[in-house]
């Protein structure tokens, strides 16, 4: 427990130390080794945090005064997702980023982003949450434009402008919350609001609107999704994997979970907004993905659609919680988080493979590919695993999480929502099967005759993620369920337990 600060401090230190190494060891592998060491340590710490429960007092000040780091079921599970994918992405980039300008700068920005994400997950202070949110966002703006071509810079600028608007909404919400409760400590805020009882009045309503827009923009829910397809397809492949795999989930979905379930409490209006925001994202993201010719843009639109699943599950869970049906609410929230884990692993896998394919064939255009299964069997196989999991084909992990969400929606009486969930699932299968048909099956065109399999280092990361695509389904088995998923839904179900744990009451 006393090591939990390393989850933020180590990547932050790496973020400032690795760029310095560029000047001394331009060609050396020392930077990669250091990056591996840091992400390996944070991953081990993240797994250890499953056994930790409680708070870490920064500079020794107790909770309402000082800023504290909070480890509970939700943050522990989230930390594992983020740091494990960061580790695989670093392994992949040690080969992929080889030919690019000083890798120290790349790893520097990468680790700043990781430090920001770990900070967002761990912090127990609203303003501190905003600070870490900005660290992660600003590092990601720079990483999107890392290739410095015209298109990349345009995407980065668009992302910068819209991301800053999102951050402004968040800071405005934090200010209003401070005005309403006189506290910035999340646990204190939640206790103050609970003592007042019932909704908290108009100010809290406006605050939750601000948070919904701000975090919704970071999560790319549909009215606020315009930046995502450009940003996620322009970034270098490992960064796309980080952005689509974990960044939108930490800055968007995790913050929505934490704020709406543990801090200000969810109301009927907010729950319905989450449900229908999620539904529109699912449908529109999937419909837009159908027509994409660019592989990475298709994956980006698919991210919008899949985040819609998670947000809708949150909304269904919140709505059921208000009705007092806790058992089904717990199932919906558990399904939502399960889908978050699965989507993080699968989308990271697909984006990493898109990078391998782009490097091998020189194109992202699906119509110019073909027969890649013959030329890149391992990449083809891992992509197939990711595709089947994300589309929800039975033995794969994505099927189980979608099934849990749909079952919870049906039990809770959300019939139109369940119909949308099933319909979008079919649509997802349709556009991913198009990817398989155009890129991987069929004869090899002449210009791709010399294509080779991706380097071993890159395949190592994708094979691990592909095993995850089938193995993560085991998380719902009794035994493992109590370890990861059950604590998450407990944290979300009993909103005030968070406050009691932090303040020790």
């Amino acid at each position, binding site marked *: 427990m*006393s090591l939990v600060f390393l989850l933020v401090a180590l990547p*932050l*230190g790496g973020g*400032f*130390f690795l*760029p*310095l190494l560029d000047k001394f060891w331009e060609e050396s592998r020392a930077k990669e080794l250091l990056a591996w060491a840091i992400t390996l340590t944070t991953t081990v710490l993240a797994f250890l945090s499953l056994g930790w429960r409680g708070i870490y007092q920064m*500079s020794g000040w107790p909770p309402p005064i000082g800023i504290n780091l909070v480890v509970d079921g939700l943050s522990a599970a989230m930390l594992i997702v983020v740091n494990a994918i960061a580790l695989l992405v670093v392994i992949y980039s040690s080969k992929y980023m080889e030919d690019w300008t000083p890798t120290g700068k790349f790893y520097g920005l990468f680790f700043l982003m990781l430090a920001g994400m770990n900070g967002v997950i761990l912090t127990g202070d609203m303003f501190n949450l905003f600070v870490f949110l900005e660290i992660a966002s600003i590092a990601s703006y720079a990483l999107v434009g890392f290739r410095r071509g*015209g298109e990349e810079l345009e995407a980065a600028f668009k992302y910068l402008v819209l991301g800053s608007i999102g951050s402004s909404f968040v800071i405005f919400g934090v200010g209003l919350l401070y005005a309403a409760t006189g506290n910035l400590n999340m646990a204190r805020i939640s206790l103050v609001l609970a003592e007042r009882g019932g909704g908290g009045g108009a100010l809290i309503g406006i605050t939750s609107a601000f948070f919904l827009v701000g975090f919704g923009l970071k999560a790319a829910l549909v009215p606020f999704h315009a930046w995502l397809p450009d940003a996620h397809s322009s970034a270098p492949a490992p960064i796309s994997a980080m952005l689509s795999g974990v960044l939108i989930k930490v800055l968007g979905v995790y913050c929505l979970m934490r704020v709406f379930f543990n801090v200000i409490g969810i109301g009927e209006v907010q729950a319905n907004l989450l449900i229908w925001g999620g539904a529109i994202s699912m449908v529109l993201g999937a419909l837009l993905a159908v027509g994409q010719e660019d592989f990475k843009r298709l994956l980006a639109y698919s991210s919008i659609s899949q985040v819609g699943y998670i947000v809708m599950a949150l909304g269904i869970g919140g709505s059921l919680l208000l009705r007092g049906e806790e058992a089904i609410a717990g199932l919906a929230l558990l399904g939502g988080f399960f889908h978050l884990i699965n989507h993080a692993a699968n989308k990271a896998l697909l984006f990493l493979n898109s990078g391998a394919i782009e490097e091998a064939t020189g194109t992202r255009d699906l119509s110019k590919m073909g027969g890649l299964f013959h030329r890149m069997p391992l990449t083809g196989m891992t992509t197939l695993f990711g595709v089947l999991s994300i589309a929800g084909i039975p033995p794969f992990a994505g099927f189980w999480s979608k099934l849990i969400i749909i079952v919870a929606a049906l039990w809770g009486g959300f019939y139109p929502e369940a119909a949308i969930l099933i319909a979008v699932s079919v649509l997802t299968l349709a556009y991913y099967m198009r990817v398989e048909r155009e890129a991987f099956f069929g004869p090899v065109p002449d210009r791709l005759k010399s294509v080779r399999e991706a380097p071993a280092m890159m395949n190592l990361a994708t094979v691990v993620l592909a095993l995850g695509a089938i193995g993560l389904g085991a998380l719902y088995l009794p035994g493992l369920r109590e370890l990861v998923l059950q604590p998450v839904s407990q944290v979300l179900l009993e909103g005030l337990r968070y406050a009691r744990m932090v303040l020790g009451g």
Partner: protein
Amino acid sequence: MGMELKPRAIPPRGPGMSLIVKEVTRLLEPAIFIFGVYITLTGHLTPGGGFPGGVILACGFILVVLAYGGARAFRRLPPEGASKYDSGGALLFLFIGALGAIFGGGFLYNFLRVYLPGEPFHLKSAGTIPLLNIAIAMKVAASLFLVVMVLTLFKPWSAEGGER
């Protein structure tokens, strides 16, 4: 202390602004830097601290760049050096924070307050706070200076793509 103003030969008009601006800058430059250092070092006693002190230091450099052009400021603080101070300041802050975790109760714990109490209201007091202020001032001064310098590096980008 009387400041002596000797008549000097008028230098040829080089890069930068007019003679008046240059002369005023030459006189103010040391004062601005000393003030920045003062604000940083007494941050634990009076209003101020690492961030304002760093901003004042950066403004001193930026003033020199505006008045004289880049060369004179870069002689003292080349951009590569500034980026080292930038990372160094952050690493120093983290290092002090980690020492707090090793010797005291937690990350950033003020362990020096116990081992080196000093006298209240004197420069040597408040434990690690002055050291953290120095780290912050390094970081803020270097990164603000770099931000302004990088902004001047960008050339207009024409619609066709490519530099103009």
